[in-house]
């Protein structure tokens, strides 16, 4: 007797839960050769709003965790990804129409990037921070601090590597993120959210929206409670308008990047979502 297939429902990831879109909308995700893969939730502006609220609530805890602890948590994500490697390879193979080896290479690259960024968590401040020379009996110390809630439009032409490369650097410094996944390849992003939900990442630190970036991004760009905007995957959108909207509330904006080197691992990506705090402290009290 043949068995009835049980297809998976791909939902949003907001505040550690997997809600459907508030709007009730979904859209069809199709494979490279046009076959139906799944229905994904089509997030609305209100889902984006809820995600920002969840992210804002998570900032204090995540930014307040020790850098060492953040590194451990991020590294554990890589461990869990490794354990579910087969699932991701199959998903990417179907969605992007790649060979098993190519899909496997993409998953390996994604895992390696998690590990690379996880390692930076407790080393980044040493590189980006500084003890400044001043003409007086003071220590003058500059340290990078997380900027807060980072809204990200993930690279649109990649399932997993692009997504990971976009969110990991923002997380390293202690930011919470709201990320709009690739519209065409959203399934791996939601599967990664399932990994995040079962790892040690606190609720709300990562919030994943699927749907049309063209619809959601303007609301995130103009949202007064979003601190920075990463437009790495927004090349096909009217991203200048997004930059203008972001300027109203003085957000830091990273511009779109195209091609295979988009969002390549770099310290600059971590530094982009930090603010430098400088402290004066007397050398001695006599």
């Amino acid at each position, binding site marked *: 007797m043949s068995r009835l297939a049980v297809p998976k429902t791909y939902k949003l990831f907001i505040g550690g839960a997997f809600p459907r879109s508030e709007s009730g909308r979904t859209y069809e995700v199709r494979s490279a050769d046009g076959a139906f893969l799944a229905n994904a939730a089509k997030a609305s502006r209100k889902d984006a709003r809820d995600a*920002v609220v969840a992210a*804002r609530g998570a900032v204090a805890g995540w930014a307040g965790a020790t850098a060492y602890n953040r590194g451990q948590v991020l590294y554990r994500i890589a461990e869990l990804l490794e354990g579910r490697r087969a699932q991701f390879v199959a998903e990417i193979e179907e969605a992007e129409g790649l060979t098993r080896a190519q899909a496997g290479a993409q998953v390996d690259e994604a895992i390696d990037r998690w590990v690379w960024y996880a390692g930076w968590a407790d080393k980044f401040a040493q590189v980006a921070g500084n003890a400044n020379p001043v003409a007086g009996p003071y220590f003058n110390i500059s340290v990078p601090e997380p900027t807060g809630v980072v809204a990200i439009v993930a690279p649109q032409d990649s399932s997993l590597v692009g997504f990971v490369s976009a969110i990991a650097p923002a997380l390293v410094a202690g930011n919470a993120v709201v990320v709009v996944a690739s519209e065409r390849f959203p399934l791996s992003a939601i599967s990664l959210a399932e990994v995040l939900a079962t790892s040690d990442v606190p609720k709300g630190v990562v919030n994943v929206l699927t749907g049309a970036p063209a619809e959601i991004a303007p*609301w995130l760009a*103009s*949202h*007064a409670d*979003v601190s920075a905007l990463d437009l790495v995957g927004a090349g096909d959108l009217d991203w200048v308008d997004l930059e203008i909207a972001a300027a109203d509330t003085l957000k830091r904006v990273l511009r779109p990047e195209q091609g295979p080197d988009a969002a390549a691992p770099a310290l600059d990506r971590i530094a982009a979502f930090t603010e430098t705090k400088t402290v004066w402290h007397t050398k001695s009290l006599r």
Partner: protein
Amino acid sequence: MSGTSLVTARERALAVLGGEPDDATLRRYLHGIAGVDAVGLEQRAAGLGTRSIKTSSKKWALDRIISLVDLTTLEGADTPGKVRSLVAKAMNPDPADATTPRVAAVCVYGDMVPYAVDALGSVHGDPDDGLISVAAVATAFPSGRSSLEIKLADTAEAVANGADEIDMVIDRGAFLAGRYGLVFDQIAAVKEACRRPDGTSASLKVILETGELVTYDNVRRASWLSILAGGDFIKTSTGKVQPAATLPVTLLMLEVVRDWHLMTGQRIGVKPAGGIRASKDAIKYLVTVAETVGEEWLQPHLFRFGASSLLNDVLLQRQKMASGHYSGADYVTID
């Protein structure tokens, strides 16, 4: 604003009860009231909560919510400075938008009343005239566990200090023990203590603390009891006990107010307090009021929200409607 005349209130109660308000008479009357259909009540409340209020209606609702708020601080750590900053916020909730209405009242502990009155200055007055009144919690708030003498002294002191409204708590222990006469007498006595030397009287809000009454039947009985004893307002909760205000409980109290109005023509106010934090929830209460007792009740002397964090959420929604983009907590004050 002044409360109802005491003499007529007592006469009316006696007429309704058909006897002196002792335990036996009250018990006969209150237990004669039909029981609450809990499922129906919750379903009705849930149904009222599904209304979609958008654009201009929402704008109206948000402004109305602000003008119905009793901005509250009831902490052991309250200081004169905290009360002054609360009053500043009450007078000017959103400094960036001069069209924002004022709240109805500030609600503080009795000993903080002088600071509130002082900080309000010329803005102190009747919320129906666009001014802000001072409400004080009294009668050994929040537990109500002290002797009647202390409760009355507590009330009289707050009134003497300039409180326009007194939020009293009923003795839930006595109510649950069936001593309805005692609860009635205490409310009536506190009502008497609300009188000022010039013959006017502070408005009396009677807090039922519905979370401790447990059943809907008890809430309905306590509502009737409070109104019979002369309360000008019935209020759900102190905010110190969970669950505090819920939509079904508020609907139930509104129904009692409606029935009382049909019976006597007198309008009693309702104040849900505690746990209402989101504009969306507050709008559901407005819908419930309008559908149960009528839009006429949506004014400061007949309906209030006891709240502190609700105001910030309403201001954020207002900013969103004005600017077209979402606002954040950095754009309202930290209370």
